[in-house]
Structure formats: C-alpha cells, structure tokens
C-alpha cells in the first residue's frame, strides 16, 4: 500500500490541467467543487492525497487507518463545499481537518480497544470485529527495513511528545508549513506555535543526541545490539 512512488501519473496531469495549476489554485478548485464540478474535486484529491495520508499516518501508524482517515478528510472537504470561504487558505484548512480527524480516530480506536478488551477474549477473530490498533513495536509500513532504526526512534519520540508539540513539529518540519501557516492550521498565535516548536525540537534533539554526536545508538537503546 505504501510506497515511495511518484505522486502524479500522466493521467492525473491531463485531468488536472496541471501545468497551469499551482498551490494558489486550491481555492479556485474548491470554488469549482462548490459549483458541482466533480473533476475539480478529483483534481483536488489527487493533489493532496499523499500529503494528507502521510500526515495521518504519522499519527496513526497504520497505512490502512491513515487511508480511511484521509478519505474521511476529503469527504469532509466535499461536504463543506457550500460553505467554503476562499479567504481561508485551503492548505491550513485541510491540514486542520486532517489533524482533528487523526486525533479523533486515535481516541475512538482507544475506546474500541477498551470496550473490546472488556467484552471479548483476546485473539477473537470474529468477522466484523474491531480493528487492532497499531502495535508500536511493529515497523512503520512507510519505513524501509533498516532505514531504519533512526526513523523508528524518531517516530517513537514524536509519539511521546505532547499532542500540540507533535502537531506543531509535524506541520512545520514534516509538511513544511512556516510558523504563520502552522499557527493558522492550529488556530494558535505565532508565539504559541514558536514555543511549541522550540519545546518539541529541543525534546527530540535531547533524545537523538547520542546518535547525533556519535552516529550510533548507545547499547541500551538498541535491542539488537
């Protein structure tokens, strides 16, 4: 399911009229969607799908769940077409929906796990049963074999960050949003985001420092050492 394949196919380009589509045209596409243009919606989905699924997967650590949540995100975008205000930057809007949907999915996953744990014996493979949450020890489906330990460790560190720090650093560094855009997506002030980003960055650096200074993990941190 997950791959590092190129995002666009020639068909996508044709359908999107992509040569004249750039990041500023999302609002224009959204206005077309509002007018009932299904092709515009298809274009919008294809332009954003990999960014959205990647961000969702950072929270969910399950390619299947990330895709489910991404579908939900786009359906929300579609449902909201009639009230979409072009003044709102599309990128911050869709990232906000993605973060909300991902966090909400995690919460309901935890709730389902709690309920199923009470009501059913473990390992019950009953059809229609509830999906298992991602096992933190399972390799990330987006990460190659040993490429690696480092990505796994960073993922763990991100998981342990307070929610808003994690969201801030993912929006800023992983999705490449500037402070202002990250702040808009999180509906926080720029100083608040600056503070979250600093804390997140320092926390991650602290954990990575053994690796950053020596290029190797200390023995106790590597189960295979």
């Amino acid at each position: 399911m997950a791959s590092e394949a190129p995002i666009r196919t020639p068909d996508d380009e044709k359908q999107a009229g992509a040569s004249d589509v750039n990041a500023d045209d999302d609002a224009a596409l959204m206005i077309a969607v509002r007018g009932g243009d299904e092709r515009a919606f298809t274009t919008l989905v294809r332009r954003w799908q990999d960014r959205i699924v990647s961000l969702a997967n950072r929270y969910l650590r399950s390619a299947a769940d990330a895709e489910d949540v991404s579908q939900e995100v786009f359906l929300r975008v579609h449902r909201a077409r009639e009230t979409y205000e072009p003044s709102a930057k599309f990128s911050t809007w869709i990232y906000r929906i993605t973060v909300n949907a991902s966090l909400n999915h995690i919460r309901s996953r935890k709730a389902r796990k709690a309920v199923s744990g009470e009501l059913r014996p473990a390992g019950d493979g009953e059809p229609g049963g509830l999906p298992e949450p991602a096992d933190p020890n399972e390799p990330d489906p987006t990460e190659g074999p040993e490429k690696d330990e480092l990505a796994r460790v960073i993922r763990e560190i991100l998981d342990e960050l307070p929610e808003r720090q994690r969201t801030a650093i993912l929006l800023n560094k992983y999705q490449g949003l500037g402070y202002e855009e990250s702040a808009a997506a999180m509906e926080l002030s720029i100083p608040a985001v600056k503070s979250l980003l600093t804390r997140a960055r320092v926390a991650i650096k602290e954990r990575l420092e053994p690796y950053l200074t020596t290029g190797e993990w200390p023995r106790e941190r590597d189960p295979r050492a």
Partner: protein
Amino acid sequence: MTETPPSPRTCPGTPPLSAEDLVAWLDDELSATDARRVESHVVACPTCAGEADLLRRTGDLVARLPRMTVSSGFADRVVAAARTAPAGRLVTSRRWSFVRTAAAAAVVVAGVGAWWAVSRPGDPGQLTAREEDEIARDLYVLAHLDTLQSADADELARIADDLDVIDAVPSEEGNGG
C-alpha cells in the same frame, strides 16, 4: 510526558540566547535585525553554535521522515463516496473552533473551573481531551441555542452529524506520565 525545558544548555552569554530565538533563526523565521543579532551571538558562542548544529540536524531528520502514497484508485473511491453524500454545513475543525468559543466563555467559567480543577481527583488543572470535548460541545450548544431550538429534524440530524467528531469517547489522554 513532562514538558521539556526550553533549553538544557546554558548559554554563558549576557544576556543568554533563548532556545526560541535559536530555533527560529535556524528556521529562517526571524526579522533581519533579530537574525543578525542571533547570528553574531552564535558565531561568538561555542555553546550555542554546538546547540544550533544539533537542532538543525534534528529538524532535518524530522523533515526527511518517509512519506506515504495512497493505494491505487484512492481518489476514485473518494469521489464515488462523495457522489452519494449530500452537502452539509460542515463545521470544520470543530474542536478548535469550540476551543475558541470556549476561550470567550472562559471568563465566565474560570471561577468554577478553578474550583473544579483543585477539587477533582488526579492530574489537577489539566483537562483530558474528553473533558475538553464535552465542555466544548456544551458551550457550542449554549452558543447556538436559538438555532437548535428552531431547527427542523433534518437540520438537527446534520448538526448531530457535525458534532460526531467530538462525540464523547473515553480517552486515555491526560493520564500519561
């Protein structure tokens, strides 16, 4: 998880350089004046120079985390699903919108909240996500009482659907160490 202090390294400068300035400088988010100030500090301060190097590499590593691509046919499935779904009056980012509404109402409830925070057991002063959601939902209902009272069944169903994202589900958040 406990909050990390802004910087574990003590800059010996007077005044010391803040971690926020250092990170914002690395991210190219400072004004020209502030950037020059930080740069000249870093050049002269080995502690901050070392810290800057580690923080820069940390940011690069997060930026280079693997990306995913969706499975084939994803867009077609989404479009097909959207075709059957009616347009709604989606309240996007409800939780954060609610939190904003909550901020306006916070003045009113601050006194009660303070009492509640100290009187409830465990983790005083910090709401769990579930509690936040419940409060946000209640505030939403309060703020939209007129609309809700005059809404017909379809309208109510739509609002209920919109509110599902903050449906109260047990959350383990806020219990972490």
